[in-house]
């Protein structure tokens, strides 16, 4: 029971501080799960993101479900997911019912302006760490640059980028192994 409450509380906190969707959550997940608790490795988080990209639903929820399941089975998955969505639920209900003017307040806008820039900085910082750990050879660098071009220049959907990269890994790593 304590375990379930801890999962709920952890993902509640992550959900509360995630501004800007699933990817903005990565620095928080890395801080809490990898650095502080050792529940997952950087590589496992990346794998979860790639799976989340190709499966139904919201990435944030997908990650919470898997981590919760690993820690405490199906009830763990449910508690982690509930924790993840609860802050949004409360905040949006508040905004929709009483605080309609809240979002247009000048100081709120300034605070969010600062937070959004901080999110960019946090994401760049995480990418720097992931790059140093995971981009070890020409193959990885090639996939990274190829994926970036497909995403930014050709606006290809993330699902196809993940599938193409998986296929490239299967064939090219397979050839290297022979």
């Amino acid at each position, binding site marked *: 029971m304590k375990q379930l409450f801890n999962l709920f509380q952890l993902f509640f906190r992550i959900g509360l501080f995630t501004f800007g969707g699933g990817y903005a959550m990565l620095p928080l997940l890395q801080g809490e799960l990898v650095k502080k608790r050792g529940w997952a490795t950087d590589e496992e988080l990346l794998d979860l993101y790639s799976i989340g990209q190709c499966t139904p*639903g919201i990435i944030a929820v997908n990650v919470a479900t898997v981590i919760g399941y690993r820690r405490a089975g199906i009830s763990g998955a449910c508690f982690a997911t509930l924790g993840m969505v609860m802050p949004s639920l409360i905040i949006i209900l508040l905004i929709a019912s009483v605080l309609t003017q809240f979002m247009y307040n000048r100081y709120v806008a300034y605070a969010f302006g600062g937070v959004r820039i901080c999110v960019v900085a946090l994401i760049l910082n995480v*990418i720097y760490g992931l790059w140093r750990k995971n981009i070890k050879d020409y193959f990885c660098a090639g996939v990274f640059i190829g994926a970036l071009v497909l995403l930014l220049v050709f606006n290809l959907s993330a699902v196809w980028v993940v599938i193409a990269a998986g296929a490239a890994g*299967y064939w090219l790593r397979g050839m290297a192994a022979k």
Partner: protein
Amino acid sequence: MIYVILFFEFFKVGLFAIGGGLVTVPFLFDLSEKYSWFTAKELADMIAVSESTPGPLGVNMATFAGFRAAGIPGGIVATLGLVFPSLVVMILIAKMMDKYSCNTRVQRVLDGIRPAVIALILSAGIEIARMAVVNLKAVIALVVFLLVIHFGKRGPIFYLALSAVAGIVFKI
């Protein structure tokens, strides 16, 4: 029964919006045409609000639409409907992952995908930067945050709180 309809409609969004986040938007536009829960303009406003409130856009939108349709219980039911497909699918995948993660073929596929996911995360960061880093003040703030985060020893939540204060003080 409005609750059943809400649950079912958002269950469908959750099931078919593969990739999450902004992928849910076209599905939500369809809902705005089919029902009178919210208008297309309110949806656009909601996307803007979601950019600056915590939590995933899909969840925010389900809560908002459900609330409009049937009050607070409606918001809760719609959110549960949205989340339910992910929950089921991911529990199944988590079971499979434990079984196959040591398989060398699976390893090879994941080896290929990891650098691509780093690129995905970078492109998401660039998307947010396009909205947030709009003037010289913002560029300076970004550089300062980068240095503080890189050399600091605190967790991300500390920096997020700090940046909200900095935003108000320096009118970013």
